[in-house]
């Protein structure tokens, strides 16, 4: 089959004893403290925690945008060096460039990687039907709805064919119906391409519905409070949220998060 529809080579991530401190004027703010984190190849791992706890910093370390003060970050058993770009990153904002058509937004990472424009467009074109955006290749992003924009942004992430995808609250700004559709859609994409996905969210249900494993972070400085394996059968559809096991997991996570939120507020 063509490159666009083949499964990606997935890679695991391992963080050992990772800490990170930022300077805020004269104050040192420790954001991450002794993080232990693992995602197996092909696994869907979610990270939840109080807002502002440092989840995005964790992503920046894995994406090579920041360097950890201590500890090691390994992807596919190899330490991440500055200048490495082992992951495809999808931020909360779609960040589609308004002056580029949808397809040129999608091809941008390929063009940055040095692929010719026409070749990049050829490759992107094959993805459009999968992402339900056929016919919108030459449209400007502002003409698309929120869900369509997010699908385009996801396409821009998938096309990079990196073994690991980091999704930072990608559906946070969507209305609940669109959000549910996007979650189902993401599971389809994951099933088709088989990436390792690390997913940041605030939404407990979203985390349970999507993930194999969930990490709950503590209030700042963030540590791993607990790690839960979501033992719900796959393939899942949205009806799974009424399963008794789902409700149990939800209650467990909710309690843990509320406690952390309270501590977070106490420190502010």
């Amino acid at each position: 089959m063509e490159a666009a529809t083949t499964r990606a080579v997935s890679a695991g991530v391992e963080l050992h004893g990772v800490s990170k401190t930022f300077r805020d004027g004269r104050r040192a703010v420790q954001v991450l403290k002794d993080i232990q984190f693992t995602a197996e190849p092909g696994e869907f791992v979610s990270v939840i925690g109080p807002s502002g706890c440092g989840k995005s910093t964790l992503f920046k370390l894995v994406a090579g945008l920041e360097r950890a003060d201590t500890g090691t970050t390994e992807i596919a058993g190899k330490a991440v060096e500055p200048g490495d770009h082992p992951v495809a990153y999808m931020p909360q904002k779609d960040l589609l460039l308004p002056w580029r058509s949808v397809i040129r937004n999608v091809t941008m990472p390929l063009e940055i990687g040095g692929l010719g424009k026409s070749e990049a467009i050829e490759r992107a074109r094959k993805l459009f039907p999968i992402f339900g955006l056929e016919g919108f290749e030459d449209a400007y992003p502002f003409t698309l709805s929120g869900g369509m924009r997010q699908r385009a942004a996801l396409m821009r992430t998938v096309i990079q064919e990196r073994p690991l995808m980091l999704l930072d609250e990608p559906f946070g700004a969507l209305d609940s119906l669109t959000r549910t559709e996007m979650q189902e859609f993401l599971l389809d994409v994951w099933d088709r391409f088989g990436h390792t996905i690390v997913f940041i969210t605030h939404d407990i249900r979203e985390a349970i519905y999507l993930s194999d494993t969930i990490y709950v972070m503590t209030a700042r400085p963030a540590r791993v409070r607990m790690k839960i394996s979501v033992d719900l059968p796959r393939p899942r559809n949205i009806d799974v949220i009424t399963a008794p096991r789902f409700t149990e997991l939800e209650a467990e996570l909710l309690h843990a998060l509320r406690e952390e939120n309270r501590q977070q507020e106490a420190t502010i």
Partner: protein
Amino acid sequence: MSVISNIRARSASGVATADGAAAEVEWVPSWSERRREAMVYLPGLLLPIAILVVWQLYVSAANVSPTVLPTPIRIVTQLYEQREIAWINTAQTLEEMAVGFVLSVIVALLIAFVMDNLRWVRNALYPTLIASQTIPVIAIAPLMIIWFGFGLLPKVLLIVLVTFFPIVVALLDGFAATEREAMDLLRTMGSSRLQTFRLVRFPGALPNFFTGLRISATYAVLAAIFAEYVGAYHGLGIWMSQSKSSFRTDLVFGAIGICALISIALFALIAIASRFVMPWHYAARRKG
């Protein structure tokens, strides 16, 4: 007229406007809408006409001497009679402005690019640039004549000096407004600084660039006239000065009128260029 008739199937290229997965359509304005759109420009046209009419009536009724204040009709007819001289002077001013303004834009783009990419250049250059804007044109223009003579060079230099600064400031503001997250995203894609500049920072600053350009355009006309006023062989500025000295007030007004037309034409040219360069900007604005 029904709504349906306003919608025309879209060809393969162009801007698609569609919220759902429905058909891609283009909005074709009806005649009544076009008339409404034209009405927007009408007051802008009516006001100067009204002023000219009042002017004409007052001067004829009060019997003012043409040396003090000529009627608009006299200005136009005299300008027509002197059309060859008028054209020689206009052509000269247009040449100065074209060379000066194009050079100014190039200089501004280069300076802004370097300042955006090298922090120390930015820190070193900014105070001097701001200081350069406090130099009064009135003082520097005669000096330019002393240094560079009566030819094209001093005019072009003065135009560049006066017009490049608003463009540089607008560009730097535009570059700085680039979203941090967008830069981070491109870095994860392996983008180099130069690629990020080309792909995100520069296109994102284009709306600012055109705003700076519009401000500069009005300065450009002023600078050209002023540079000529203090010394030139030809040009609208020196023609104004000569006409004033020979009490040809009508021709002074004629030259002023030509200057106004040049300004408006330059403004329109920039507006057309910005629509051509940033169709996405205007399409997005129309929508919301």
